[in-house]
């Protein structure tokens, strides 16, 4: 033993790593990927926004105010300049004067530095039911004087608050991705798994199915399937049908990856060793092979979510996915389809598009980080 410690000691990892299981090692490796850690923070933040939408949004998503159509975003500042130059803590939004052009029937908003709207945190406002369960009227931010209206990110053609709609849209857009991925994951794991584990004729059949599915042109197929949704269905039914449609096409790449992992694991010595230990087939799959894949599957899922978000957004934008009154990022972008809206209210395009980009990029970076960390024994 003396020689073993002498000649091989240099190759041993640091002492603390010895007892670390795969998850601990993965966390260590993941932390080295800065961008992924930041992205993880953003993703968590987005989901918190989705969960507490009612509380975070200043208003309900459908609250219309005809007198404030296309109101521009109001700037916020936290301190007040008093006449003598002293600064005092007073969060407020910039105010404006509204003039109505009777001929064009258009409102113009001109900023008025003398007018301010004091804002407060945890203010009482419009009543809502949190998660449809608890009645409340507390909002994170809002004007302290009741009756005043503030549009931090502007308003749309019906005078609805874009910020509120964006926050409610986060809930739908971020969750439709998850639901879709769960369905794809179930299909992909199941079909890819049996394809990879059994091989042979079953494998050939499933692979041909995958090829046929991935050869289908997606947009026409989406349009066809979406057209089949009866108009009488409520928004929730439509929501689930769209999810199902998107995920029925999304499982193929997952299935291929799972199959590849199974194939390569089947040839590993430690799987043969398990067989020689007398381990049964089910235990080999679940105890010996699957743990080597969970981390990869996690990474695959994270990379699949943004694809689902993009799919939802494009479908809704084209008017064949979600439809109003459901609020999602795609639906919000629908409002930005005509040139007039963009020229007079660019914020209608800007904010939802930014939300989609931030979400998709964060998921992609997060997925990259997870993929790099997924195999802590790789090198």
């Amino acid at each position, binding site marked *: 033993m003396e*020689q*073993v410690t002498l000649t*091989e000691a240099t190759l041993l990892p640091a002492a603390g790593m010895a007892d670390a*299981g795969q998850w601990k090692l993965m966390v260590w490796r993941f932390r080295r990927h800065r961008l992924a850690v930041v992205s993880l923070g953003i993703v968590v933040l987005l989901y918190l926004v989705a969960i507490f939408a009612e509380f975070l949004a200043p208003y309900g998503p459908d609250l219309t105010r005809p007198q404030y159509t296309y109101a521009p975003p109001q700037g916020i500042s936290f301190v007040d300049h008093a006449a003598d130059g002293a600064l005092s803590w007073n969060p407020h939004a910039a105010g404006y004067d509204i003039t109505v052009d009777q001929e064009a029937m258009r409102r113009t908003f001109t900023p008025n530095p003398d007018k301010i709207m004091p804002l407060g945190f945890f203010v009482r406002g419009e009543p809502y039911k949190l998660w449809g369960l608890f009645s409340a009227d507390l909002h994170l931010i809002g004007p302290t004087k009741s009756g005043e209206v503030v549009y931090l990110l502007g308003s749309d053609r019906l005078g609805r608050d874009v910020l509120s709609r964006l926050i409610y849209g986060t809930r739908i857009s971020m969750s439709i991705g998850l639901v879709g991925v769960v369905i794809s994951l179930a299909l992909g794991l199941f079909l890819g798994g049996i394809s990879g584990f059994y091989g042979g004729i079953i494998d050939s059949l499933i692979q041909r199915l995958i090829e046929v599915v991935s050869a289908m042109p997606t947009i026409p197929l989406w349009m066809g399937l979406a057209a089949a949704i009866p108009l009488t269905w409520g928004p929730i039914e439509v929501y689930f049908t769209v999810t199902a449609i998107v995920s029925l096409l999304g499982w193929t790449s997952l299935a291929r990856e799972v199959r590849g992992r199974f194939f390569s694991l089947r040839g*590993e010595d430690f799987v043969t*060793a398990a067989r*020689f230990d*007398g381990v049964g087939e089910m235990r080999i799959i679940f105890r010996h092979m699957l743990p080597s894949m969970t981390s990869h599957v996690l990474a695959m899922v994270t990379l699949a979510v943004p694809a689902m978000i993009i799919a939802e957004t494009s479908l809704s934008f084209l008017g064949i996915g979600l439809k109003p009154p459901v609020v999602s990022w795609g639906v919000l972008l629908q409002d930005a389809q005509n040139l007039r809206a963009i020229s007079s209210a660019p914020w209608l395009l800007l904010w939802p598009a930014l939300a989609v980009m931030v979400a998709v990029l964060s998921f992609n970076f997060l997925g990259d980080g997870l993929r790099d960390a997924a195999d802590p024994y790789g090198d």
Partner: protein
Amino acid sequence: MATDLAPIISVRDLNVEFRLRQGIVHAVKNVSFELRPGRTLGLVGESGSGKSVTARALMQLVDPPGYIASGAMMLGDTDIAKLGRRGPAIRALRGADISMIFQEPMSSLSPVHTIGSQIIEALRLHLKLGHADARKRAIELLQQVEIADAQRNIDRYTFEFSGGMRQRVMIAMALACNPRVLIADEPTTALDVTTQAEVLDLIRRIQRERGMAMLLITHDMGVVAEVADDIAVMYRGEIVEAGPVDQVFHQASHHYTQRLLSSVLKLEGTAELKAGPVAGAAPILSVKGLGKTYLVGAGAFGGRAKSSFRAVNDVSFQLGAGESLGIVGESGSGKTTLGRLIMRSVEPTDGEVVFSPDGAPAMDVRSLDRAGLRRYYEQVRFVFQDPFSSLNPRMSVREIVGEPLHVSGSLNGRALTTRVRELLDLVGLDPDVMGRYPHAFSGGQRQRIGIARALALEPKILIADEPTSALDVSIRSQILDLLLDLQRRLGLSYIMISHDIGVIRYFCDRVAVMRQGKIVEIGDAKTVCTAPSHPYTKALISAVPYPDPRTPRMSRREKYFENSA
């Protein structure tokens, strides 16, 4: 002695460091040596000793995070250490003044270019030859490295060549620009012994003819003894001993060198621990006419096979209780497949395997159903070659060693933990490490874990497939001694599959020599290793380099040709 010749390269106080997250690792520490024309310096050491990094530093090929921290490498008036990793200066030097032969001939040659075009490229870049001249020169080079029919072979691709031929092509490429220094990094490690002997012969002959200086890096003391003029022994980044080959082998002063040599020489003899088979013991495993045919070219749609290939052909032998049987052969001889056939992880196509343990009914292994096979696996166990891939990295040592116990349902909970402790103790590991994961262990320690797993169910037979070939030589004999000790204590029988004659001679009572799927010779290990009767065995054994520069064996080796059988 040719030491009066001026050195071509002199290395002074070379330091190479790697900047890692855990801190700076000093891979090479204050290394100094000289390469003289016509002489070969053998740089030896075990894995991780820094010998390859030193060689790469000579060509400025150390990849980040590694860097040359200090020191000088003088080639004439040029200090290579100051040239930097990129730029025309170092590129002009690589290949032209110093060239390198790598270990893996397959991965260091491009598979999408013909061998000719790869040599011609080097010639045109460095010597600025025209295409026709370069081609003529390339053919000459191939002839020099003894590639038959060079005119035709120059237009072939690397995958059309065998491993030995590829290494010859590599050598031809390295020689293309008449370098003054040749660095050979484990040039024959991936090759079979008979091929190794030929390639070493070739390298040595060319080096002498051209008066090149050579740096030979190897872990194999036998190869150094046969080829090198001087030796430098590396240990943990430092050269601990250097001198003429005879002096180092016979008057080693550093204790590491002494220990290294003694563990090498130990494997030249027979184990003292060997118990020897119980006289008149009944055979515990008998193999009759075992064979495996692979069908080649059977299509995905069940088309007829174009041809068939016999991986194992009509193999018969008996393993006595308490005996160690060696199966030796070169790559492709079918020895690994034979082990898998006995374990039925590859289904045999013909023949029979009968397992007849003492005091229990005999089992016809080929007709066992799933439950029967499980009982068979409890008594016949397997030790894998690769200590890294054979242990699931996601299971702790306790789970790995306990898995067979858990699955057989014989033990669980605290009793299982106690048994795992016993097993780890038995294989010489500290039982308190069982909460750790395999990545915390070295190769030798992992192999011990693998052995503990194999012993968990108190087996009768252990089939070990090259259990020591991935290990350093000093650890190799420790693992073999462990297996012998276990044999004495537990009454085990072994089938030891190996390409290494030393391991077989050290470990086995009887040996079967395999070639092209057939057993060509079987008999007492000592007799086969010292006085073989089959010409193939003679060629095989005489090709093994002997770790003593005073008795070179390879140069007097016998050669085996197909028709001489």
